[in-house]
């Protein structure tokens, strides 16, 4: 049995890569590519008559394979299927770090899952509250209810947009400038930030279009997303590069934190760095920048 570290609600989640829980050849070492989270899929990637088999595979994979620091989230089947309850039981029993609620539309959906998760934690002797939750928003209703969904449970660590189904419901198609999902994306970022949790953009499916992928990534970062869902390991590096702080941002963050430490020791709460006014409100952002930089291997100083 591989003991897994306790799941953290707030951690680096730049890259969340989807993996089919049913394919033994794929899941045995997906973590070597260095993504922050792996999403083992019991939903769309698994045929309807193989849902039972995928659960057995998932259970044993989680109990045998050492995923190291990579987080393992499981996407369970929708609440409109006969599978979700058993999915939740196996997720909790096998020690998955979190559960992704597909097609989440309301706070009630989250509460339903939360309650089943708690029940399972009690049934399997797992520390109550250990299993985290995230919601995948795939419909207009889901997007509009984003804030209440985010606030519906202490287990919620983030929300993701699932673009494929969403675009169909919106009656539009993929656009290179992102205008098709701009309102949805905006709402999700707002909701996540108001609730104080993370937000992730949808998958980019055209694996051969490197330029298009980079353009979407830059827009994702500019809009404030924490990370992105991926379908192929080759997408990991570009995301880590785009979401990494620039050298300029890192130097600025270092200056701010150093200056703050010096100034606050001298009892001064507001000061200037490079001609800009800085106070304590800037510190969390600067710290986040340096932590992210550290995780990306771009900073090895002692300030964080």
């Amino acid at each position, binding site marked *: 049995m591989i003991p897994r570290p306790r799941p953290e609600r707030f951690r680096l989640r730049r890259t969340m890569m989807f993996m089919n829980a049913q394919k033994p*050849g794929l899941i045995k070492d997906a973590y070597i590519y260095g993504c922050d989270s792996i999403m083992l899929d019991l939903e769309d990637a698994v045929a309807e008559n193989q849902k*039972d088999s995928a659960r*057995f595979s998932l259970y*044993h994979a989680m109990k045998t394979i050492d995923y190291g620091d990579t987080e393992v989230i499981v996407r369970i089947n929708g609440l409109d299927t006969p599978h979700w309850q058993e999915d939740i039981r196996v997720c909790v029993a096998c020690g998955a770090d979190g559960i992704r609620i597909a097609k989440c539309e309301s706070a009630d959906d989250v509460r339903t899952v939360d309650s089943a998760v708690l029940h399972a934690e009690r049934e399997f002797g797992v520390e109550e509250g250990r299993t985290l939750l995230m919601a995948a928003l795939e419909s207009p209703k889901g997007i509009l209810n984003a804030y209440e969904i985010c606030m519906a449970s202490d287990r919620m660590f983030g929300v993701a947009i699932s673009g494929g189904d969403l675009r169909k419901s919106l009656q539009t198609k993929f656009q290179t400038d992102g205008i098709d999902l701009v309102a949805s994306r905006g709402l999700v970022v707002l909701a996540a930030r108001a609730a104080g949790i993370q937000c992730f953009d949808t998958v980019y499916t055209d694996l051969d279009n490197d330029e298009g992928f980079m353009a979407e990534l830059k827009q994702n970062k500019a809009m404030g997303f924490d990370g992105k869902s991926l379908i192929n390991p080759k997408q990991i590096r570009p995301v880590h590069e785009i979401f990494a702080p620039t050298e300029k941002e890192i130097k600025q963050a270092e200056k701010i934190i150093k200056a703050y430490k010096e100034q606050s020791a001298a009892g001064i709460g507001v000061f200037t760095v490079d001609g800009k006014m800085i106070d304590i409100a800037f510190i969390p952002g600067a710290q986040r920048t340096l932590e992210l930089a550290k995780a990306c291997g771009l900073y090895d100083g002692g300030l964080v």
Partner: protein
Amino acid sequence: MTIDKTAVAGTLESSDSMVTVEPSDAGIQLELTSSVMNQYGRQIKAVVLDTLKRLDVTNARVSVIDQGALDCTIKARVECAVFRSCSKSETNIPWGGMIK
């Protein structure tokens, strides 16, 4: 557990094992072929028999066609086939109990 009907789990893909269980009244009969027979045949046999024992299966005809699956996959396929054979594979699985 008793095997009520023939059931299959797994595929013939590389790194997978296809496990078929059939009812029997003559103890456990195992037929095993593997692409890594020389190196892991003995170990695969042990894992299969061990899993059947853990599931309290005493009578079954089991056939395993292995394409280099790891132990965790073999266990999962045997368990799934056994539970399918008594139509119990969809709900209330004893995770952490019989399934270890």
